C-alpha cells in the first residue's frame, strides 16, 4: 500500500507535483497517467525517497521509504532503465543489487530467466537495446520479491511481444496480492492492464477511480447526425433535439454530436421537424479521447500547427454559418462528451478519417 498525502514538489518556481493525495492498494494494478512533464516520475522518485517532498508525505506500508527496514525486499522499482553502469554485465549489476539486500545469487539467475535475458547475462549492458535495458530494469525491480512494485513506463521500447509480457506480468504480480503502480502515457494500454487509474495533469490529481468507473463515466455513447448543408435545417433540428432533452454539439466537420437521446427518437424528431438526415450513426467516445479531454487543459508540451498545412487548400465541406462558432476553437465542455481536435489541427479543418474505434454504420463509412 502506497499512500500520498498532500504530496508537493517544487523545483525552484516550477511546481512539478501539486498537493497530490492518493492511495495505491494491494492486489490491483494501478495505472498512473498524465501527459509529459505532469509529474509522474517525480512522484515515483518521491515514493522511493530519491527526491524529498517540498510538502506533504508519501509512505509505503505506513513507513516513509527511507526508514523502511531492508527496502529492496519490500519495494522494487523500475524508474529509469538506463540507470545502470554500462560497463558492468547484466548479471553483475543484478548481483550487486542482490547483495545489498542479502538476496541469494540463485535469485539473480532466476530473474534473468524471468525477463528473458539469460543469454546476454554476461554481456555489458551498454550494448543493450532499449527493450533489453527495460527488461534489465524490470529484473532489478523483481529481485527482492517485493510486495510493492513501481514501474515508470515499463513498456517504453518494448516490442509487441514484450508489451504483452509486461501486461501479463503486472496482472500476475497484482493477483499475488502485491501493490503494482505503473505509469504510462497510453490510456489504451492502461485500459488493458490496470484495474485502477490515477490521472494527473500539471502535478494535480485529475481523476482517481477504477478503470470500470472511468469507462462508464467517460465513454458516453453519442449519435452523429449529418444534415444537408443548409443552416435552417441544422437550426431546426438542433432546436427540436434540444427541446426533447438532448444535447447537441457541432463537430469540426459540420456534423452534429447528439447525446441523451436514443437513435430512433432522433430520427422521429427530425422527421417531425421536416429535416432530412444524411447520416445517423451510433458512436462511443474512446477512452483515449476521454483521457485527452481530461488532460487537454494540463498539457505542457504540445506541438504547434505545421505551417505546411497552409499549402494544402482545405476542402470546405460546406459554408458554415458565421455564428456557428466553429471557426473558433471550441471551449472545454463541462460534460465529457466532446473530443477536442488533435493537437496541431485547426478545429475548422475537416477530420481526416473517422476515429478507428467508432462504429460506422451509415453510408458515410468507407
Amino acid at each position, binding site marked *: 500500500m502506497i499512500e500520498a498525502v498532500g504530496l508537493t514538489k517544487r523545483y525552484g518556481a516550477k511546481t512539478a507535483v501539486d498537493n497530490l493525495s492518493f492511495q495505491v492498494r494491494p492486489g490491483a494494478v494501478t495505472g498512473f497517467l498524465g501527459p509529459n512533464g505532469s509529474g509522474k516520475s517525480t512522484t515515483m*522518485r518521491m515514493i*522511493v*525517497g*530519491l*527526491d*524529498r517532498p517540498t510538502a506533504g508525505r508519501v509512505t509505503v506500508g505506513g513507513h516513509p*521509504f*527511507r*526508514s*523502511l*527496514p*531492508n*527496502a*529492496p525486499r519490500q*519495494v522494487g*522499482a523500475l*524508474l*529509469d532503465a*538506463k*540507470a*545502470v*553502469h*554500462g*560497463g*558492468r*554485465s547484466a548479471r*553483475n549489476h543484478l*548481483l*550487486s*543489487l542482490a*547483495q*545489498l*539486500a*542479502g538476496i541469494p545469487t540463485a535469485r539473480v539467475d532466476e530473474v534473468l530467466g524471468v525477463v528473458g535475458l539469460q543469454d546476454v547475462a554476461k554481456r555489458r549492458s551498454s550494448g543493450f537495446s532499449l527493450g533489453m535495458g527495460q527488461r534489465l530494469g524490470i529484473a*532489478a525491480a523483481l529481485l527482492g520479491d517485493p510486495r510493492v512494485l513501481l514501474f515508470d513506463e515499463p513498456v517504453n521500447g518494448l516490442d509487441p511481444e514484450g508489451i504483452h509480457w509486461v501486461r501479463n506480468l503486472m496482472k500476475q504480480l497484482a493477483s499475488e496480492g502485491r501493490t503494482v503502480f505503473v505509469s504510462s502515457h497510453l490510456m489504451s494500454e492502461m485500459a488493458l492492464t490496470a484495474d485502477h487509474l490515477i490521472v494527473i495533469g500539471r502535478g494535480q490529481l485529475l481523476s482517481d477511480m477504477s478503470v470500470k468507473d472511468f469507462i462508464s463515466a467517460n465513454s458516453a455513447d453519442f449519435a452523429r447526425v449529418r444534415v444537408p448543408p443548409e443552416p435552417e435545417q441544422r437550426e431546426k433540428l438542433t432546436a427540436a433535439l434540444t427541446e426533447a432533452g438532448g444535447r447537441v454539439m457541432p463537430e469540426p466537420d459540420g456534423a452534429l454530436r447528439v447525446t441523451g437521446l436514443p437513435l430512433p427518437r432522433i430520427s422521429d424528431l427530425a422527421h417531425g421537424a421536416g429535416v432530412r438526415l444524411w447520416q445517423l450513426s451510433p458512436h462511443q467516445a474512446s477512452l483515449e479521447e476521454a483521457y485527452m479531454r481530461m488532460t487537454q487543459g494540463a498539457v505542457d508540451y504540445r506541438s504547434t500547427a505545421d505551417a505546411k498545412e497552409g499549402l494544402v487548400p482545405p476542402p470546405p465541406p460546406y459554408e458554415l454559418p458565421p455564428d456557428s462558432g466553429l471557426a473558433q476553437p471550441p471551449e472545454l465542455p463541462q460534460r465529457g462528451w466532446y473530443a477536442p481536435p488533435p493537437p496541431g489541427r485547426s478545429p475548422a479543418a475537416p477530420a481526416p478519417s473517422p476515429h478507428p474505434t467508432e462504429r460506422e454504420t451509415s453510408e458515410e463509412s468507407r
Partner: protein
Amino acid sequence: MASVPAVLNSEWTKIRTVSSTTWTLISAFVVTVAMGAALSALLNSQFDDLPTAERATFDATYVGFSGMTLGQLAMVVFGVLVVGTEYSSGMIRTSLAAVPQRGSFLFSKIAVAGALALVVGLATSFVTFFVSQALLGDHRTDIGAENVLRAVFGGGVYMGLIAIFSMGVATMLRSSMLSLGILMPFFFLVSQILSAVPGAKTVARYFPDQAGSKIMQVVPDAMNSDPAPYGPWAGLGIMALWVIAALAGGYLVLRKRDA
C-alpha cells in the same frame, strides 16, 4: 535497513566488475614505479652534476617517489570514477532506491574503494622503493635506515588519501567530468606552480598534495625543497583534514540533494 556488511559486499562487487578500476589502478602502479625507476637511474648517473645544495640534501627515498606526481593522477581518476560513474550512468538512483540510508551507501563505497586504493598504493610505494633503490647504485638507502620505512609506508597512505579525497570531491560535484576537470589541473599544474611562486607558496604548502607528500621525505627539506613549518606526520595530518573536509562536504550534498 540494509546492513553495512551487505552494502560493503555490494560495493565490492560493483568495483571489481568495471574495467576502469583495473586500468586506473594499474596505471597508478606502473607510472609511479616506472617514473621513479627512470629518475633514480638518471640521478645515479648524473649525481656529480647536481647542485651542491641538492647533493647535501639528497634523499634516495624521495627521489624514488618522483613518479608520484604523475601516478597520483591515476589515483585521482580512480577516485573520481568510482563515485562519478554512479551519477553519469544514473546508477545512483538505483543504488539509493536500494540503500535509502545515504550515509551507509556513501561511506561503504568509500571504505571499499579507499581500502583498495590504499592496498594498491602501499604495493606501489614498496615496489617503487625497492626498484628505485636498486637503480640508485651507491646513493641508495635501506628500508631499515632511520625514517625510511615511515616514508615508504607514508607514500602508500598518500596515494590512498589522494583517491579518497577525489571521491569526496566527486560526491560534492556529482559529475566525473567536472571533478576531473578541476582535480587534474589542480594537482598537476596549479599546486605545483603555486608552490614555486614566492608569496603563493606559503599558502600552497597547505594544499593536500604539498602537505601530504612531506611524509615521503626522509631527509628534511629533501632535494633542497622549501622548508615547511610542519613535520612529515603533521603534513599527512593536514592532508587528512582535507580528506575529511571533502568527505563531509560530499556527505552533506548527498544527504541534502535530490538524487
